[in-house]
């Protein structure tokens, strides 16, 4: 009995071991590591799979988590492309030599330079701004000119912020650091830490929710979460506020979700095919409609409910600085004890 038991075990292990190995030999497949919520990226990938017949194998996890995974896997990595929700992780991957330049000629003609890596090893696909969401019953928007205002004492107990491991918080604080220097960045982080107190959230959606319910008066979020909330509950007393538009201001903090070609990609043509699709008007329009993001391809219009991208001034600090400022900003965040 024991013998047959062990035979069965061995057999099952072998059989199952094979099952787990993705069929990477097939030429018409592309392995995607994605740090974006599946809900936002899967419809686009599904559409690509249907129209081209190329199989997409998707692994969803956190952006930084995937950078770590790529790094640990090294040359053994099965990933062909790496999709993230912000440029910092992509730039970090590039610095760690985990990416290689995309050689498609359309990159230069479609994607504005500030939205891609200097060597084109990653490109932005859709943009979002990190802005203020405020409760219209509780706040007079003319009292807020800058994100830095939210770090001042009048906002104590009225502010909701993302938690310390949020890539958006890190990117936003990095931009403040790049534009205004260390002292201001420190004061900003300290201020929002004290003002937020316990109102620290893991998800943007929860921050918008807290503002809509009046639990706090203002919050810091990516713009599309506000419009998504308004989409399901048009009566919600919330509104977006784009700050830092004065001449000496930082400008609206813009970040992109993007895609990078991994250094050890094994399905080059399929990967390039996917990247081409995502840059094309079909792909760009899907980003704009599914997630109310700003398409990076300037020829594609953003969703009409959004403030048009011409109506505000975005920060001119290159996104590539996000990666080099990342470690200092994380250390600052840790030193100041943000949660």
């Amino acid at each position, binding site marked *: 009995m024991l013998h047959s038991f062990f035979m069965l*075990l061995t057999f099952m292990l072998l059989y199952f071991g094979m099952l*787990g190995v993705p069929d990477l030999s097939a030429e018409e497949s592309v392995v995607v590591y994605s740090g974006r919520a599946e809900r936002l990226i899967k419809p686009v990938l599904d559409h690509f799979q249907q129209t081209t017949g190329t199989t997409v194998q998707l692994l969803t996890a956190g952006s*930084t988590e995937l950078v*770590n995974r790529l790094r640990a*896997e090294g040359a053994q990595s099965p990933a062909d492309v790496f999709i993230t929700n912000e440029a910092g992780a992509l730039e970090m991957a590039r610095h760690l030599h985990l990416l290689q330049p995309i050689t498609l000629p359309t990159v230069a003609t479609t994607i504005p330079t500030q939205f891609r890596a200097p060597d084109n090893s990653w490109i932005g696909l859709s943009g979002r701004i990190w802005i203020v969401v405020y409760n219209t019953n509780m706040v007079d928007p003319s009292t807020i000119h800058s994100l830095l205002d939210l770090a001042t004492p009048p906002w104590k107990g009225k502010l909701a912020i993302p*938690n*310390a491991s949020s890539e958006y918080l890190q990117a936003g604080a990095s931009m403040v650091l790049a534009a205004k220097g260390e002292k201001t960045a420190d004061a900003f982080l300290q201020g929002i830490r004290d003002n937020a107190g*316990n109102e620290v959230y893991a998800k943007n959606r929860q921050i918008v929710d807290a503002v809509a319910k009046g*639990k706090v008066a203002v919050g810091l979020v990516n713009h599309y979460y506000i419009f998504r909330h308004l989409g399901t509950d048009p009566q919600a007393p919330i509104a977006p506020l784009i700050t830092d538009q004065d001449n000496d201001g930082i400008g609206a903090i813009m970040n992109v979700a993007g895609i990078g070609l991994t250094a050890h990609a094994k399905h080059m043509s399929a990967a390039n095919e996917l990247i081409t699709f995502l840059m094309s008007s079909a792909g760009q329009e899907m980003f704009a409609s599914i997630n109310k993001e700003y398409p990076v391809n300037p020829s594609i219009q953003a969703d009409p409910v959004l403030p048009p991208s011409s109506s505000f001034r975005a920060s001119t600090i290159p996104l590539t600085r996000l990666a080099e400022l990342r470690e200092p900003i994380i250390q600052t965040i840790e030193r100041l004890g943000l949660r």
Partner: protein
Amino acid sequence: MALGTAAMLTFPLLYVTYSALTGDLSLIPRLWATRLPELLTNTISLALGVSLTTLTLGVSTAWVMTRYQFWGRAFWDWGFVLPLAIPSFVLAYIYSYLLDTAGPVEQAWQWLTHSDDRIPSPYSFMGALVVMTLNTFPYVYLLARAAFQNFNLSFEEAAQATGATRRETFFRVSLPLIRPALVASMFLVILYVVSDFGAVSLLRFQTFTYAIYQQITGRFDYQSASLLSLLLVAFALIFLFAERWFRTQSRFYQTSGRVRTATPKPCSWMKAIGINLTFLFIFSAAFGLPVLLLIQWTFAAWTSGEMESSLGRYIWNSLFLSAIAATAALALGTPLAYLASRIPTRFHLACLQGAYIGYVLPGPVAALALLMVFTNTLPFLYGTVLVLILAYLVHYLPAGLQAMESAMQEVNPNLEEAARNLGAKGIRTFMQITFPLVRKGFSAAWLLMFLLCMKELPATLLLRPIGFDTLAVRIWLEASEELYQLAAPPALLIVLLTIPAVFLLSKKNWQAGEGSVQ
């Protein structure tokens, strides 16, 4: 083979120690100045808090169940083990919904009291305490129930004959007498709380395991993660040794001669109603309400057509992964348990003890250690489920090993010797004599490991092959986006699929010291 298994299980810890101590050591004072005080306070207070509340809840329910005969008793007898089928992160996501600002509980409270009172936020110590208590009290209940069932009534009678009140008898005689069970269950709960990852991260309560996971996912800081893990391991080892020590001390309590155990006495109908209402409240909080919510959300997802189309594949992945891991653990654990109990040389005992170490290493850290090792040495195996199975083995074999070890100890070696004297060879003796005798204990070990693997999260998140999601992973991905309705169907499935295992496990007469469960 024993050495190989032990080496495999201790290896991740060695790797973690290596990477913690070979890096920049100035990190230690920095961690001490920033994160450590908060993490230590949080982890210790949560562990102590949960062990106190679970002891109160578990012991009182077990006491009532063993001492009173009342209508409904048969139902509660298995009703109280059902919460074990709910993974901690599922309970956490349900309670974060229930107790959230303007959530159902707050609205109900405001309606009842006609006030604008706010209830305490679930994203706090209290939230974590409630969820972890509801999730772990069945362990205490099972152990305390077994202790009360084997309890010698003469002691209580002697106390009462010499004039002690019933209250005094309970606190000064009955409770001290089941101390081994209490100590064992307290350690169990503390280990569970200290190593839990899913619940605390959904409730954003900063404990060691959560901080470790953040270190290796929010940024690439494997050294900090390793250092924190080493601290956690040191903690857990102290607990493990203390538990072993208490277990040897507990022999003192064994009585010889005739043991008269308590039989449940009938109680008045008023009392029966009171008991049933209280039990209903506990049961609803820990199992009834969460499952009803899951059913409602699943139904909503079903009718709105948002149901995942590939649920069938996730079920298959979860079931087979857990079944294979549990089976492999049994196969690997058998020689360890056998050699340690039959030929207890120092070497064999050391192998056994070594195997327990994987138990206390946080899941995410062990998983990352395995990932690094496999990509560097056996790249062709990386990205297969084998690595994942190995991670499960490292983490959960110890839990099963405890059950296997005690099953093995209950077999009288004379039987095996007789077989050998009659000419049977080693393997044949094991298969024809030992194995049939330990079958029950071994099946309990298998069920336990199966159950734990079904609910495993951090290692699966880090090591799953591409396109290979389990039910637990799906729940996690949806729940961390707060998509309650989408997370509900896989959560409900995990509960339904693990209920049979939980039920079978509860049939086993749990003794103090057996079946440490994480």
